Protein backbone atom coordinates (compact mmCIF):
# COMPACT_ATOMS: atom_id res chain seq x y z
CA UNK A 1 0.00 0.00 0.00
CA UNK A 2 3.04 2.30 0.35
CA UNK A 3 3.29 2.94 -3.35
CA UNK A 4 5.66 5.64 -4.66
CA UNK A 5 2.70 7.35 -6.29
CA UNK A 6 0.87 7.64 -3.00
CA UNK A 7 4.01 8.97 -1.32
CA UNK A 8 4.57 11.56 -4.04
CA UNK A 9 0.92 12.50 -4.03
CA UNK A 10 0.99 13.21 -0.30
CA UNK A 11 4.32 14.97 -0.53
CA UNK A 12 2.84 17.39 -3.06
CA UNK A 13 -0.32 17.66 -1.03
CA UNK A 14 1.63 18.44 2.13
CA UNK A 15 3.72 21.14 0.47
CA UNK A 16 0.62 22.78 -1.02
CA UNK A 17 -1.19 22.67 2.30
CA UNK A 18 1.86 23.72 4.29
CA UNK A 19 2.52 26.86 2.28
CA UNK A 20 -1.08 27.90 2.91
CA UNK A 21 -0.68 27.17 6.63
CA UNK A 22 2.47 29.30 6.60
CA UNK A 23 0.47 32.16 5.13
CA UNK A 24 -2.02 31.76 7.96
CA UNK A 25 0.81 31.90 10.52
CA UNK A 26 2.99 34.73 9.20
CA UNK A 27 0.78 37.46 10.69
CA UNK A 28 1.02 35.85 14.11
CA UNK A 29 4.79 35.67 13.76
CA UNK A 30 5.05 39.35 12.79
CA UNK A 31 2.89 40.48 15.70
CA UNK A 32 4.70 38.20 18.15
CA UNK A 33 8.16 39.18 16.95
CA UNK A 34 7.81 42.90 16.26
CA UNK A 35 5.02 44.07 18.57
CA UNK A 36 6.11 41.56 21.22
CA UNK A 37 2.54 40.49 21.78
CA UNK A 38 1.37 36.98 22.62
CA UNK A 39 -1.89 36.82 20.69
CA UNK A 40 -4.00 33.78 21.51
CA UNK A 41 -6.86 35.02 19.34
CA UNK A 42 -5.00 34.54 16.05
CA UNK A 43 -6.82 31.34 15.14
CA UNK A 44 -10.12 33.10 15.64
CA UNK A 45 -9.08 35.92 13.34
CA UNK A 46 -8.53 33.18 10.74
CA UNK A 47 -12.00 31.80 11.52
CA UNK A 48 -13.46 35.30 11.17
CA UNK A 49 -11.62 35.77 7.87
CA UNK A 50 -13.13 32.55 6.56
CA UNK A 51 -16.61 33.72 7.55
CA UNK A 52 -16.06 37.11 5.95
CA UNK A 53 -14.94 35.29 2.83
CA UNK A 54 -18.09 33.14 3.02
CA UNK A 55 -20.26 36.23 3.53
CA UNK A 56 -18.69 38.03 0.57
CA UNK A 57 -18.93 34.87 -1.51
CA UNK A 58 -22.61 34.44 -0.83
CA UNK A 59 -23.78 38.05 -0.87
CA UNK A 60 -21.64 39.31 -3.75
CA UNK A 61 -21.42 35.98 -5.58
CA UNK A 62 -17.65 36.34 -5.39
CA UNK A 63 -15.33 33.37 -5.76
CA UNK A 64 -13.69 32.82 -2.33
CA UNK A 65 -10.24 33.11 -3.86
CA UNK A 66 -11.16 36.66 -4.91
CA UNK A 67 -12.70 37.73 -1.59
CA UNK A 68 -9.37 38.98 -0.11
CA UNK A 69 -9.59 41.89 -2.57
CA UNK A 70 -12.21 43.24 -0.16
CA UNK A 71 -11.14 41.19 2.86
CA UNK A 72 -7.55 42.43 2.97
CA UNK A 73 -8.35 46.14 3.35
CA UNK A 74 -11.12 45.33 5.84
CA UNK A 75 -8.77 43.20 7.95
CA UNK A 76 -5.98 45.77 7.59
CA UNK A 77 -8.30 48.32 9.20
CA UNK A 78 -9.45 45.74 11.74
CA UNK A 79 -5.80 45.27 12.70
CA UNK A 80 -5.46 49.02 13.35
CA UNK A 81 -8.69 49.05 15.38
CA UNK A 82 -7.71 46.02 17.47
CA UNK A 83 -4.26 47.49 18.07
CA UNK A 84 -5.60 50.83 19.27
CA UNK A 85 -8.47 49.38 21.30
CA UNK A 86 -6.76 46.38 22.90
CA UNK A 87 -3.19 45.49 21.97
CA UNK A 88 -1.72 48.94 22.61
CA UNK A 89 -2.78 48.76 26.25
CA UNK A 90 -1.09 45.42 26.91
CA UNK A 91 2.18 45.52 24.95
CA UNK A 92 4.20 46.23 28.08
CA UNK A 93 2.21 43.78 30.19
CA UNK A 94 3.63 40.37 31.18
CA UNK A 95 2.81 37.49 28.78
CA UNK A 96 0.24 36.04 31.20
CA UNK A 97 -1.84 39.23 31.13
CA UNK A 98 -1.55 39.31 27.34
CA UNK A 99 -2.80 35.74 27.18
CA UNK A 100 -5.72 36.54 29.49
CA UNK A 101 -6.77 39.54 27.41
CA UNK A 102 -6.39 37.82 24.02
CA UNK A 103 -8.23 34.73 25.24
CA UNK A 104 -11.04 37.13 26.14
CA UNK A 105 -10.91 38.42 22.57
CA UNK A 106 -10.96 34.83 21.30
CA UNK A 107 -14.14 34.07 23.26
CA UNK A 108 -15.71 37.26 21.96
CA UNK A 109 -14.92 36.40 18.32
CA UNK A 110 -16.07 32.81 18.71
CA UNK A 111 -19.40 33.81 20.19
CA UNK A 112 -19.85 36.56 17.67
CA UNK A 113 -19.47 33.94 14.91
CA UNK A 114 -21.88 31.62 16.73
CA UNK A 115 -24.48 34.38 16.99
CA UNK A 116 -24.21 35.54 13.40
CA UNK A 117 -23.52 32.33 11.46
CA UNK A 118 -24.72 29.61 13.89
CA UNK A 119 -22.97 26.37 14.69
CA UNK A 120 -23.33 24.32 11.51
CA UNK A 121 -20.32 24.38 9.20
CA UNK A 122 -20.49 26.69 6.23
CA UNK A 123 -18.71 26.22 2.97
CA UNK A 124 -18.66 28.18 -0.20
CA UNK A 125 -21.25 27.04 -2.75
CA UNK A 126 -18.86 27.12 -5.64
CA UNK A 127 -15.36 28.03 -6.65
CA UNK A 128 -13.89 28.37 -10.10
CA UNK A 129 -10.98 26.32 -8.82
CA UNK A 130 -12.90 23.15 -8.06
CA UNK A 131 -10.90 21.11 -10.58
CA UNK A 132 -7.56 19.35 -10.48
CA UNK A 133 -4.56 19.09 -12.74
CA UNK A 134 -3.49 15.58 -13.52
CA UNK A 135 0.15 14.60 -13.82
CA UNK A 136 0.13 10.92 -14.65
CA UNK A 137 -1.68 9.43 -11.70
CA UNK A 138 -0.98 12.39 -9.45
CA UNK A 139 -3.65 14.98 -8.73
CA UNK A 140 -2.91 18.65 -8.09
CA UNK A 141 -6.00 20.51 -6.91
CA UNK A 142 -6.23 23.94 -8.54
CA UNK A 143 -7.50 25.69 -5.40
CA UNK A 144 -4.51 24.62 -3.32
CA UNK A 145 -2.04 25.29 -6.14
CA UNK A 146 -3.41 28.84 -6.46
CA UNK A 147 -3.22 29.15 -2.68
CA UNK A 148 0.41 28.14 -2.68
CA UNK A 149 1.27 30.62 -5.44
CA UNK A 150 -0.47 33.45 -3.55
CA UNK A 151 1.34 32.40 -0.38
CA UNK A 152 4.77 32.31 -2.00
CA UNK A 153 4.17 35.66 -3.70
CA UNK A 154 3.15 37.15 -0.33
CA UNK A 155 6.24 35.76 1.36
CA UNK A 156 8.45 37.16 -1.37
CA UNK A 157 6.92 40.63 -1.13
CA UNK A 158 7.14 40.52 2.65
CA UNK A 159 10.78 39.47 2.51
CA UNK A 160 11.62 42.35 0.16
CA UNK A 161 9.66 44.77 2.34
CA UNK A 162 11.49 43.68 5.51
CA UNK A 163 14.98 43.79 3.99
CA UNK A 164 14.87 46.57 1.39
CA UNK A 165 12.58 49.31 2.74
CA UNK A 166 13.28 51.66 5.60
CA UNK A 167 9.98 50.84 7.30
CA UNK A 168 10.60 47.11 6.97
CA UNK A 169 14.11 47.38 8.40
CA UNK A 170 12.65 49.46 11.24
CA UNK A 171 10.19 46.64 11.98
CA UNK A 172 13.06 44.19 12.34
CA UNK A 173 14.95 46.73 14.45
CA UNK A 174 11.92 47.07 16.70
CA UNK A 175 11.84 43.29 17.09
CA UNK A 176 15.50 43.39 18.17
CA UNK A 177 15.51 46.31 20.59
CA UNK A 178 12.52 48.50 21.32
CA UNK A 179 14.37 51.22 23.24
CA UNK A 180 17.08 51.56 20.60
CA UNK A 181 14.48 51.75 17.84
CA UNK A 182 12.76 54.58 19.70
CA UNK A 183 16.13 56.33 20.11
CA UNK A 184 16.67 56.13 16.33
CA UNK A 185 13.52 58.19 15.83
CA UNK A 186 11.03 55.38 15.24
CA UNK A 187 7.51 56.19 16.38
CA UNK A 188 7.01 52.87 18.13
CA UNK A 189 3.25 53.18 18.45
CA UNK A 190 2.72 53.83 14.74
CA UNK A 191 5.04 51.05 13.67
CA UNK A 192 3.34 48.57 16.01
CA UNK A 193 0.03 49.64 14.55
CA UNK A 194 1.26 49.08 11.00
CA UNK A 195 2.61 45.65 11.97
CA UNK A 196 -0.77 44.62 13.42
CA UNK A 197 -2.58 45.97 10.36
CA UNK A 198 -0.28 43.98 8.08
CA UNK A 199 -0.35 40.85 10.25
CA UNK A 200 -4.14 40.75 10.50
CA UNK A 201 -4.56 41.88 6.89
CA UNK A 202 -2.64 38.84 5.63
CA UNK A 203 -5.02 36.65 7.65
CA UNK A 204 -7.75 37.71 5.22
CA UNK A 205 -5.68 36.25 2.35
CA UNK A 206 -5.26 32.97 4.19
CA UNK A 207 -8.95 32.86 5.16
CA UNK A 208 -10.09 33.23 1.55
CA UNK A 209 -7.76 30.48 0.37
CA UNK A 210 -8.65 28.08 3.19
CA UNK A 211 -12.36 28.45 2.49
CA UNK A 212 -11.91 27.19 -1.07
CA UNK A 213 -11.28 23.70 0.30
CA UNK A 214 -12.32 23.71 3.95
CA UNK A 215 -15.63 24.55 5.58
CA UNK A 216 -15.73 26.93 8.53
CA UNK A 217 -17.56 26.69 11.85
CA UNK A 218 -17.28 28.81 15.01
CA UNK A 219 -14.76 26.36 16.51
CA UNK A 220 -12.42 26.51 13.52
CA UNK A 221 -10.25 28.99 15.42
CA UNK A 222 -9.27 26.30 17.89
CA UNK A 223 -7.40 24.15 15.39
CA UNK A 224 -5.89 27.08 13.49
CA UNK A 225 -4.83 28.77 16.70
CA UNK A 226 -2.90 25.68 17.73
CA UNK A 227 -1.55 25.10 14.25
CA UNK A 228 -0.29 28.65 13.72
CA UNK A 229 1.28 28.82 17.18
CA UNK A 230 3.02 25.52 16.51
CA UNK A 231 4.36 26.85 13.21
CA UNK A 232 5.66 30.02 14.88
CA UNK A 233 7.22 27.99 17.71
CA UNK A 234 8.93 25.68 15.26
CA UNK A 235 10.22 28.54 13.12
CA UNK A 236 11.46 30.57 16.06
CA UNK A 237 11.98 34.29 15.71
CA UNK A 238 13.91 35.07 12.57
CA UNK A 239 13.28 35.61 8.91
CA UNK A 240 10.05 34.91 7.05
CA UNK A 241 11.57 31.90 5.27
CA UNK A 242 11.58 30.01 8.59
CA UNK A 243 7.82 30.34 8.79
CA UNK A 244 7.40 29.05 5.23
CA UNK A 245 9.58 25.99 5.93
CA UNK A 246 7.95 25.32 9.26
CA UNK A 247 4.48 25.65 7.70
CA UNK A 248 5.47 23.08 5.07
CA UNK A 249 6.66 20.66 7.75
CA UNK A 250 3.25 20.88 9.41
CA UNK A 251 1.52 20.57 6.06
CA UNK A 252 3.45 17.36 5.37
CA UNK A 253 2.61 16.00 8.82
CA UNK A 254 -1.01 16.83 8.19
CA UNK A 255 -1.13 15.20 4.74
CA UNK A 256 0.67 12.03 5.80
CA UNK A 257 -1.41 11.59 8.94
CA UNK A 258 -4.59 11.94 6.93
CA UNK A 259 -3.41 9.49 4.28
CA UNK A 260 -1.76 6.78 6.36
CA UNK A 261 -3.51 7.00 9.69
CA UNK A 262 -6.81 8.80 9.91
CA UNK A 263 -7.89 12.26 8.73
CA UNK A 264 -9.32 12.85 12.20
CA UNK A 265 -5.91 12.35 13.80
CA UNK A 266 -4.44 15.55 12.30
CA UNK A 267 -4.71 17.43 15.55
CA UNK A 268 -2.96 14.68 17.45
CA UNK A 269 0.02 14.85 15.11
CA UNK A 270 0.22 18.60 15.41
CA UNK A 271 0.09 18.36 19.22
CA UNK A 272 2.77 15.69 19.29
CA UNK A 273 5.05 17.67 16.97
CA UNK A 274 4.48 20.78 19.09
CA UNK A 275 5.31 19.00 22.35
CA UNK A 276 8.41 17.30 20.92
CA UNK A 277 9.56 20.66 19.64
CA UNK A 278 9.13 22.44 22.97
CA UNK A 279 10.98 19.57 24.54
CA UNK A 280 14.02 19.43 22.27
CA UNK A 281 14.28 22.82 20.53
CA UNK A 282 12.43 25.52 22.48
CA UNK A 283 14.20 28.15 20.36
CA UNK A 284 12.68 26.77 17.19
CA UNK A 285 14.37 25.09 14.27
CA UNK A 286 15.32 28.22 12.39
CA UNK A 287 15.25 30.80 15.19
CA UNK A 288 18.08 33.02 16.21
CA UNK A 289 16.71 33.75 19.64
Amino acid sequence: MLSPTLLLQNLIFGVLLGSIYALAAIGLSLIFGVVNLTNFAHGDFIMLAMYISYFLGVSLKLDPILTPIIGFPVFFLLGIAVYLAIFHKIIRAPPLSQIAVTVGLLVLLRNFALAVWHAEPKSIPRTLLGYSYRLGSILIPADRLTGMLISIATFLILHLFLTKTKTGIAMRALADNLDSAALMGVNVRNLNMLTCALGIGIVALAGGILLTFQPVNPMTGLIYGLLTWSIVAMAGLGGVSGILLSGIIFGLADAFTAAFWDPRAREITIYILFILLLWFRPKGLFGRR
Partner: protein
Amino acid sequence: MSLRVEELNVAYGKVQVLWDVSFKVEGGSLVSIIGPNGAGKTTLIKTISGLLRPLSGKILFEDQDITGRPPHTIKKLGISTVPEGRGLFPNLTVKENLIMGSYTIKDQQRIEKTFKFIHQLFPILSEREQQLAGSLSGGEAQMLSIARALMSEPKMLLFDEPSLGLAPMIVEKIFEVIKTLKQRGITILLVEQHVQHALELADYAYILENGRIVLEGRGEELLENPHLKKHYLGL
Protein backbone atom coordinates in the same frame (compact mmCIF):
# COMPACT_ATOMS: atom_id res chain seq x y z
CA MET B 1 23.02 77.38 25.74
CA SER B 2 22.42 73.93 24.36
CA LEU B 3 21.11 71.67 27.11
CA ARG B 4 19.87 72.71 30.53
CA VAL B 5 18.61 70.31 33.17
CA GLU B 6 16.82 71.81 36.18
CA GLU B 7 15.96 70.12 39.48
CA LEU B 8 15.40 66.74 37.87
CA ASN B 9 13.78 64.02 40.00
CA VAL B 10 13.44 60.59 38.42
CA ALA B 11 12.19 57.27 39.78
CA TYR B 12 12.55 53.74 38.42
CA GLY B 13 9.31 52.12 39.47
CA LYS B 14 8.92 53.13 43.11
CA VAL B 15 12.58 53.79 43.79
CA GLN B 16 13.73 57.34 43.31
CA VAL B 17 17.09 57.39 41.54
CA LEU B 18 17.83 61.04 40.77
CA TRP B 19 17.36 63.86 43.28
CA ASP B 20 17.24 67.52 42.20
CA VAL B 21 19.86 67.11 39.51
CA SER B 22 20.73 70.35 37.73
CA PHE B 23 23.45 71.02 35.20
CA LYS B 24 24.03 72.62 31.84
CA VAL B 25 25.92 71.90 28.66
CA GLU B 26 26.95 74.91 26.56
CA GLY B 27 26.69 74.60 22.78
CA GLY B 28 29.87 73.07 21.32
CA SER B 29 31.28 72.03 24.67
CA LEU B 30 31.88 68.65 26.22
CA VAL B 31 30.50 68.03 29.68
CA SER B 32 31.30 64.87 31.63
CA ILE B 33 29.20 63.39 34.38
CA ILE B 34 31.17 61.00 36.51
CA GLY B 35 29.95 58.59 39.11
CA PRO B 36 30.20 55.06 40.39
CA ASN B 37 27.90 52.19 39.48
CA GLY B 38 24.34 52.81 40.56
CA ALA B 39 24.77 56.56 40.88
CA GLY B 40 22.00 57.15 38.34
CA LYS B 41 24.07 57.88 35.24
CA THR B 42 22.10 55.66 32.88
CA THR B 43 18.82 56.89 34.36
CA LEU B 44 19.92 60.43 33.58
CA ILE B 45 20.70 59.61 29.93
CA LYS B 46 17.41 57.70 29.56
CA THR B 47 15.47 60.65 30.93
CA ILE B 48 17.11 63.19 28.64
CA SER B 49 16.60 60.95 25.58
CA GLY B 50 12.93 60.46 26.45
CA LEU B 51 12.91 56.79 27.45
CA LEU B 52 12.00 57.70 31.04
CA ARG B 53 9.66 60.39 32.30
CA PRO B 54 10.85 62.44 35.26
CA LEU B 55 8.72 62.93 38.40
CA SER B 56 9.52 66.61 38.30
CA GLY B 57 12.04 69.04 36.91
CA LYS B 58 12.77 70.44 33.50
CA ILE B 59 14.93 69.56 30.51
CA LEU B 60 15.52 72.34 28.01
CA PHE B 61 17.25 71.89 24.65
CA GLU B 62 18.05 75.08 22.79
CA ASP B 63 15.54 76.82 25.08
CA GLN B 64 12.80 74.39 24.11
CA ASP B 65 11.13 72.41 26.88
CA ILE B 66 11.58 68.72 25.98
CA THR B 67 10.65 67.26 29.39
CA GLY B 68 8.67 64.02 29.09
CA ARG B 69 8.52 64.07 25.28
CA PRO B 70 8.66 60.68 23.51
CA PRO B 71 12.15 59.63 22.33
CA HIS B 72 11.50 59.82 18.58
CA THR B 73 10.59 63.52 18.81
CA ILE B 74 13.72 64.27 20.84
CA LYS B 75 15.84 62.52 18.20
CA LYS B 76 14.27 64.72 15.54
CA LEU B 77 15.40 67.84 17.42
CA GLY B 78 19.00 66.70 16.94
CA ILE B 79 19.88 64.74 20.07
CA SER B 80 21.47 61.35 19.35
CA THR B 81 22.24 58.73 21.97
CA VAL B 82 25.01 56.14 22.21
CA PRO B 83 23.22 53.99 24.77
CA GLU B 84 24.60 51.87 27.57
CA GLY B 85 25.79 48.48 26.32
CA ARG B 86 25.79 49.80 22.68
CA GLY B 87 22.06 49.06 22.12
CA LEU B 88 22.67 47.64 18.65
CA PHE B 89 20.20 45.61 16.60
CA PRO B 90 22.04 42.26 16.65
CA ASN B 91 20.00 40.58 13.88
CA LEU B 92 20.45 43.49 11.50
CA THR B 93 23.58 43.90 9.40
CA VAL B 94 26.08 46.66 10.13
CA LYS B 95 24.72 48.54 7.11
CA GLU B 96 21.13 48.16 8.30
CA ASN B 97 22.08 49.43 11.75
CA LEU B 98 23.50 52.54 10.09
CA ILE B 99 20.36 52.91 7.98
CA MET B 100 18.38 52.89 11.22
CA GLY B 101 20.64 55.68 12.45
CA SER B 102 19.52 57.81 9.51
CA TYR B 103 15.85 56.95 10.06
CA THR B 104 14.85 60.59 10.60
CA ILE B 105 16.70 61.88 7.52
CA LYS B 106 14.68 62.00 4.31
CA ASP B 107 17.36 63.42 1.98
CA GLN B 108 19.20 60.49 0.37
CA GLN B 109 22.18 62.65 -0.67
CA ARG B 110 22.79 63.76 2.89
CA ILE B 111 22.70 60.14 4.01
CA GLU B 112 25.29 59.19 1.36
CA LYS B 113 27.50 62.04 2.53
CA THR B 114 27.32 60.92 6.15
CA PHE B 115 28.05 57.34 5.07
CA LYS B 116 31.29 58.56 3.49
CA PHE B 117 32.27 60.44 6.64
CA ILE B 118 31.50 57.35 8.77
CA HIS B 119 33.66 55.18 6.54
CA GLN B 120 36.58 57.59 6.95
CA LEU B 121 36.13 57.66 10.71
CA PHE B 122 35.68 53.87 11.07
CA PRO B 123 37.15 52.06 8.04
CA ILE B 124 36.61 48.72 9.81
CA LEU B 125 32.82 49.20 9.57
CA SER B 126 32.85 49.33 5.77
CA GLU B 127 34.67 45.98 5.73
CA ARG B 128 31.98 44.54 8.00
CA GLU B 129 29.02 46.11 6.20
CA GLN B 130 27.14 42.90 5.41
CA GLN B 131 27.94 41.16 8.69
CA LEU B 132 25.31 40.87 11.44
CA ALA B 133 25.88 43.44 14.18
CA GLY B 134 25.59 40.65 16.75
CA SER B 135 28.81 39.11 15.43
CA LEU B 136 31.00 42.18 16.03
CA SER B 137 33.68 42.39 18.72
CA GLY B 138 33.13 44.75 21.66
CA GLY B 139 35.22 47.55 20.16
CA GLU B 140 33.64 47.26 16.72
CA ALA B 141 30.19 47.21 18.31
CA GLN B 142 30.93 50.42 20.18
CA MET B 143 32.20 52.06 16.98
CA LEU B 144 29.02 50.99 15.21
CA SER B 145 26.92 52.41 18.02
CA ILE B 146 28.72 55.76 17.72
CA ALA B 147 28.55 55.67 13.92
CA ARG B 148 24.84 54.94 14.07
CA ALA B 149 24.28 57.91 16.38
CA LEU B 150 26.18 60.12 13.90
CA MET B 151 24.07 59.07 10.91
CA SER B 152 21.40 61.65 11.75
CA GLU B 153 23.98 64.50 11.83
CA PRO B 154 23.12 65.35 15.44
CA LYS B 155 23.65 68.70 17.13
CA MET B 156 24.19 66.93 20.39
CA LEU B 157 25.46 63.49 21.41
CA LEU B 158 24.71 61.67 24.63
CA PHE B 159 27.29 59.01 25.53
CA ASP B 160 26.37 56.42 28.16
CA GLU B 161 29.60 54.79 29.36
CA PRO B 162 31.23 54.23 25.97
CA SER B 163 34.30 52.62 27.57
CA LEU B 164 32.35 49.94 29.44
CA GLY B 165 33.75 46.44 28.98
CA LEU B 166 36.42 47.42 26.45
CA ALA B 167 40.14 46.65 26.43
CA PRO B 168 42.37 49.63 27.40
CA MET B 169 43.67 50.04 23.84
CA ILE B 170 40.16 50.22 22.43
CA VAL B 171 39.16 52.67 25.17
CA GLU B 172 41.94 54.99 23.99
CA LYS B 173 40.60 54.75 20.47
CA ILE B 174 37.02 55.49 21.50
CA PHE B 175 38.07 58.60 23.44
CA GLU B 176 40.14 59.68 20.43
CA VAL B 177 36.96 59.51 18.36
CA ILE B 178 34.99 61.48 20.96
CA LYS B 179 37.70 64.15 20.85
CA THR B 180 37.44 64.32 17.05
CA LEU B 181 33.67 64.76 17.30
CA LYS B 182 34.09 67.53 19.82
CA GLN B 183 36.49 69.27 17.47
CA ARG B 184 33.84 69.10 14.77
CA GLY B 185 31.62 71.23 16.98
CA ILE B 186 29.16 68.64 18.23
CA THR B 187 27.88 69.31 21.75
CA ILE B 188 28.60 66.30 23.92
CA LEU B 189 27.33 64.98 27.23
CA LEU B 190 29.56 62.14 28.36
CA VAL B 191 28.56 59.91 31.24
CA GLU B 192 31.51 57.81 32.39
CA GLN B 193 33.17 55.78 35.09
CA HIS B 194 36.54 56.20 33.44
CA VAL B 195 37.49 59.32 35.43
CA GLN B 196 40.87 60.20 33.99
CA HIS B 197 39.81 60.23 30.35
CA ALA B 198 36.45 61.82 30.96
CA LEU B 199 37.95 64.71 32.93
CA GLU B 200 40.81 65.32 30.52
CA LEU B 201 38.38 65.73 27.65
CA ALA B 202 35.77 67.72 29.54
CA ASP B 203 35.33 71.48 29.45
CA TYR B 204 33.26 71.11 32.57
CA ALA B 205 32.32 68.13 34.74
CA TYR B 206 29.92 67.05 37.45
CA ILE B 207 30.24 64.27 39.98
CA LEU B 208 27.08 62.24 40.56
CA GLU B 209 26.82 60.15 43.73
CA ASN B 210 23.69 58.37 44.95
CA GLY B 211 21.55 60.34 42.55
CA ARG B 212 22.81 63.78 43.54
CA ILE B 213 25.38 66.12 42.04
CA VAL B 214 28.00 66.43 44.80
CA LEU B 215 30.77 68.28 43.03
CA GLU B 216 31.33 70.28 39.87
CA GLY B 217 34.09 72.19 38.20
CA ARG B 218 36.35 72.51 35.21
CA GLY B 219 37.85 69.21 34.11
CA GLU B 220 41.46 69.94 35.10
CA GLU B 221 40.34 71.50 38.40
CA LEU B 222 38.50 68.34 39.39
CA LEU B 223 41.51 66.19 38.54
CA GLU B 224 43.28 68.02 41.42
CA ASN B 225 40.34 67.72 43.83
CA PRO B 226 41.27 65.75 47.01
CA HIS B 227 37.88 63.97 47.31
CA LEU B 228 38.10 62.85 43.73
CA LYS B 229 41.74 61.85 44.00
CA LYS B 230 41.01 59.71 47.01
CA HIS B 231 37.80 58.03 45.93
CA TYR B 232 38.03 57.84 42.16
CA LEU B 233 41.64 57.93 41.15
CA GLY B 234 42.99 55.98 44.12
CA LEU B 235 45.80 58.44 44.72
